[in-house]
């Protein structure tokens, strides 16, 4: 054992206080980032990647069709009208698909919104690639105006064959107060 102080009690106290401070730091610098990294890497928790997918698929798998369902939810207190233009699409893995969500701000003042995606089954999250998504950025909208928000996605060719339906859910949050703050997806 390394001795930091001649006095045995001082030595013990210094070491243990170091451990305590280290554990406090551990929560912030290890647990929080590690949680995000693990969720991203493993696609667990239904989290999809927060960045645009830029690879190209080898081709289009015409042998099967995947049903994509779109769900939109307003977080508590969020007054926008928000929803998909079509609720169900049938797509082939590998193909590039486009759809739009519509949003309307019924209040007189301008607001900023953030949509948070979640994929179900969670196992499908890593195979659901978005090349373009309104959820990558905060979405400002003037008072009493509406907008169409585009979504472009590719279902991976390697999607396990037992998955035939993927549900993509968006929850829209009012982030007007914290707009411009932390990075969001």
């Amino acid at each position, binding site marked *: 054992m390394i001795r930091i102080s001649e006095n045995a009690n001082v030595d013990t106290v210094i070491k243990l206080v170091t451990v*305590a401070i280290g554990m406090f730091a551990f929560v912030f610098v290890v647990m929080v980032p590690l*949680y995000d990294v693990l969720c991203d890497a493993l696609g667990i928790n239904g989290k999809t990647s927060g960045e645009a997918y830029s690879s190209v698929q080898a081709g289009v798998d015409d042998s099967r069709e995947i049903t994509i369902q779109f769900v939109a939810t307003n977080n508590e207190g969020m007054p926008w009208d928000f929803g998909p233009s079509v609720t169900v699409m049938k797509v082939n893995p590998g193909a590039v698909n486009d759809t739009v969500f519509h949003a309307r701000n019924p209040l007189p003042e301008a607001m900023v919104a953030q949509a948070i995606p979640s994929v179900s089954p969670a196992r499908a999250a890593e195979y659901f690639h978005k090349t373009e998504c309104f959820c990558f950025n905060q979405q400002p909208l003037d008072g009493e105006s509406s907008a169409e928000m585009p979504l472009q996605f590719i279902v991976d060719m390697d999607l396990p064959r037992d998955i035939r339906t993927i549900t993509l859910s968006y929850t829209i949050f009012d982030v007007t107060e914290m707009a411009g703050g932390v990075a969001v997806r």
Partner: protein
Amino acid sequence: MGDHHHGPAKGITRWLFTTNHKDIGTMYLWFSFAMFILGGAFAMIIRAELFQPGMQLVEPAFFNQMTTLHGLVMVFGAIMPSFVGLANWMIPLMIGAPDMALPRMNNWSFWILPPTFLMLASTLFMEGGAPAFGWTFYAPLSTTYAPPSVTLFIFSVHVLGLSSIMGSINIIATVMNMRAPGMTYMKMPLFVWTWLITAFLLVAVMPVLAGAVTMMLMDIHFGTSFFSAAGGGDPVLFQHIFWFFGHPEVYIIILPAFGVVSQIIPAFSRKPLFGYDSMVYATAAIAFLSFIVWAHHMYTVGMPVAGELFFMYATMLIAVPTGVKVFNWISTMWRGSLTFETPMLFSIGFLILFTIGGFTGLMLSIAPADFQYHDSYFVVAHFHYVMVAGAVFSMTAAIYYWLPKWCGRMYNEAMGKTHFWISFVGFNLAFFPQHFVGLAGMPRRIPDYALQFADFNMMSSIGAFIYGASQILFLYNVIATIVSGKPTSDEKVWDGAEGLEWTVATPAPYHTFETPPRIDPAHAHS
């Protein structure tokens, strides 16, 4: 220490400025008993409301405050400080040290507690009421939807953590540096061993709790989004951090209780503890495993199957070292010259009821089954079997066991035994039926319930009232002992008791072991 012996200072300053481990231990014990009564009063309100279906006595919002404060006060105010008090009193006596290693810090770690709980209790009178999000304070209930009092709650958790960390550092420094010559680690009484390991757990996880509440504070007041999905955070992250603290926390509560019964059962079996070495290793194994099983509290959050399986198997593994302990206690009693004084009765009560709580824990560890049990009264029954019949019963046993040594007077044995039997019956009447209503689907933390649960809930409430009332008897017995108990001056109050604490005079003098005791190298652990 001077050449002359001096007693304690006079008046209130004795208690305010004391650095004496016995004084501080006494204050911890009285304080934790007061918190036990306060938390118990909250429990009585809960059980009175649940006496009959329908809303009877309190508003749902107030009911939520009661369940929250009951948990917080019992865990952080009653159980943890009571064992710290016991550690203060007994560890120096058991290892032959004159005092704790850091006496001034010891004073401070006690005296920051009472104002903290005063502050926490005062939130009951705040606008918006006391915290009402359960003792586990899951985000976003404790962030987005919390009452304004949550900020005071966060501050009190910070201070409680600080107190626990200081207390633990003191215990570790005492055990590592202050043992009498010849008192090797493997000769230490098991209570000292379990506390040493508990103290390491506390130093490791109390900062994690502090981190969790700090994140809450930042989310609420400084616009961060650790637990808010809108800003890229995740409320499930809160549960991971909380239970990374929370699971070791339950062993922090129960390990010292294991230590206590490991002292008492040999004394009244008149045999050395069976399997001392395996007890030490089992304690260490439980402490290690406690760090890798946290997610069994959150099977239903939607983990991948691989995660569920890992946490399920790791959790079941804890049954092995715990089983080693239970079998060792039974083997200690096997063919012993048993007598059944009050401390022994409470220890045997602990052994039986804790084992039941362990088995229901094993049931809850089964991930697919847990989806049915989750957040039901079955969970409430399970953790009261390990918290009350585990920690509180063993603490009660400890008080009866060492009280004559502390004050030089015997407690009333008949009253003690009466206390045990009323407690035992009341406890089981209160909590055993909760297994049934839980399996049948009654959710926890709800002030009303479906009619088919009425009979069992009434039984449960009556049992709770009986158990609560029996603590008044306990308080009376302790006060009567201190004031007018039959004086005893036997150094060894119990003929079968072993250990250095039974070599000092009775009542224990204000200063002990100013010269270290001699420990016979041939003598086994006590």
